[in-house]
């Protein structure tokens, strides 16, 4: 990247169940907050990147209709959608829009409105990932019980997660209690984040494990209390070129970014076989992280990263990805978790915002990771601001059937020194 680029504005809506607004209004809310945060006039936005997963909210290319709510008319707009990674991919698109030199200021928006679906958690939109495969399997005489086993995978992300958690626990030696710890940490952190959905102040491991409803194991080893909610919400960032970013008080400079795709987990198109036998391996995240760190000039992430925002709709994923982001030894992330290192006031806070476990508006989720990292660097995270000087922060997102990864690294100084 030959040009320095920075995040100069962040906007988030309250995430949760938002039945009092329509999608367009919700997107507009986040976009205008970001524009105001960056102290820009709407005319100064040169390009827009936006994304969500359209099957959940039931609108095809929603930005065509809702564009008028966030100032899109007359501007070049790219719609990006990559599953769970969507928000992160959108943020990266805006970064490239500016880094290319074609535009100076770009607006990136991620959103989702799950509650517009009449099924709980927009299950049909989610099942739709593998619905075609499922129809094919049924036509080939799949029996009911095996269909449930496949069905675990038909729900793409949610389904493979139980299997993935078992894999990780097997190779790392981590226990369900550790998953409870991640969940409790996330939910209590979320209570300090005004935009989060599930805010459970001072949530304890005991509460997660022994609650009559949340404590129940719904797909071994995952409890109901381990699973992310289906939220409504939108988040946005403003990305600007160096000349413009210099006038911001404390911009969050983009220091590195990468994305990577692995083979699908569990099955390929038409339920063909794949050669991934351990979905907790996550080689694409290793690759993306290595690329992003090298671009950022970070040689020792454990020492140099001050805060991490990891995409973790399921608790074991916080552990897996913190290892893959080279923040901890392979299979050992549960030890620093036990020791409280990843708490807001710990040595290396992970998901001080409460993460995806507490708030999951799919298209917005990975965008929020970037936005939260920017807030931590800008020192504007409010109650969940980590009590230390944040020099480098890493934002992560996973998508597809956990086979896509985006990694974005933000810092308090520009990447290239002039």
């Amino acid at each position: 990247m030959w040009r320095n680029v920075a995040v100069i504005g962040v906007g988030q809506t309250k995430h949760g169940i938002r039945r009092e607004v329509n999608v367009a209004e919700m997107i507009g809310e986040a976009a205008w907050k970001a524009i105001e945060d960056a102290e820009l006039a709407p005319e100064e936005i040169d390009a827009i990147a936006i994304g969500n997963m359209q099957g959940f909210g039931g609108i095809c290319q929603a930005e065509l209709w809702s564009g008028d709510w966030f100032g899109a008319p007359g501007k070049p707009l790219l719609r990006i959608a990559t599953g769970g990674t969507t928000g992160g991919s959108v943020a990266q698109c805006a970064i490239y829009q500016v880094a290319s030199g074609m535009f100076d200021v770009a607006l990136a928006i991620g959103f989702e409105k799950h509650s517009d679906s009449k099924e709980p958690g927009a299950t049909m939109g989610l099942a739709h990932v593998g619905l075609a495969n499922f129809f094919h399997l049924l036509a080939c005489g799949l029996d009911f019980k095996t269909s449930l086993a496949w069905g675990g995978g038909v729900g793409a992300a949610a389904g493979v997660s139980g299997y993935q958690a078992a894999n990780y626990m097997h190779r790392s030696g981590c226990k369900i209690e550790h998953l409870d710890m991640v969940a409790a940490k996330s939910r209590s952190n979320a209570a300090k984040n005004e935009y989060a959905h599930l805010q459970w102040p001072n949530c304890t491991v005991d509460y997660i494990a022994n609650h009559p409803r949340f404590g129940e194991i719904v797909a071994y080893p995952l409890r109901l209390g381990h699973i992310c909610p289906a939220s409504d919400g939108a988040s946005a960032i403003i990305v600007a070129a160096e000349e413009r970013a210099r006038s911001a008080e404390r911009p969050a400079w983009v220091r590195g970014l990468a994305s990577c795709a692995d083979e699908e987990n569990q099955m390929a198109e038409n339920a063909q076989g794949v050669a991934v036998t351990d979905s907790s391996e996550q080689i694409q995240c290793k690759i993306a992280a290595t690329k992003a760190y090298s671009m950022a000039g970070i040689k020792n992430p454990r020492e140099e990263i001050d805060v991490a925002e990891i995409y973790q709709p399921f608790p074991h994923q916080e552990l897996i990805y913190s290892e893959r982001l080279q923040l901890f030894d392979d299979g050992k992330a549960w030890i620093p978790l036990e020791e409280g290192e990843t708490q807001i006031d710990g040595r290396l806070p992970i998901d001080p915002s409460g993460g995806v476990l507490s708030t999951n508006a799919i298209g917005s989720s990975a965008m929020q990771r970037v936005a939260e990292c920017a807030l931590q660097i800008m020192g504007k995270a409010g109650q969940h601001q980590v009590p230390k000087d944040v020099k480098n922060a890493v934002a992560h997102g996973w998508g597809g059937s956990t086979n896509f990864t985006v990694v974005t690294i933000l810092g308090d100084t520009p990447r290239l020194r002039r």
Partner: protein
Amino acid sequence: MAKKERKETIAVDGIWPVGSYSYKAPELYKELLEGFKQKRIIGSLCTGCGMVYVPPRNICGRCWRKIDTRASVSDVGTVRTFTISPEMKRGRTKILGVDPVEAGWLKEGERLIMVYVNFDGTNSNYTTILMNSKPEDVHIGMRVRAVWKEQPEGKLSDLVGVEPIK
């Protein structure tokens, strides 16, 4: 954590007929099911990287080429990962509007053990059910064998599941 009063506006409805779509599948499953008829599992072998995909696949994305070599693989394998359902109870869930316990597809109180099995000589997981085992006994690395229907008819249900090798 009490429920808060929420502001709400009215809603307007719409439908997305996902069932009205039509898709295309390759003939690979025909080959797999032909094998099932003889209680054999067919995979495809990429002659570029040696990966054996089960069920067969016709593109190897690693070598970025088409695969047309098939391989017959063992029906003995290893559990690579698993998940376990909660106890199935009448009235607990509905799948496409049907209560599976009421319909007799599952027994009251049954816990389903769902496994990814890596059949020997393959690089893939095959998704199926672990039979004749208790939830507390299942573990990663468990050796299992395919359980076939006595009279296979060339359907996916011919491979009923897998069971532990004693």
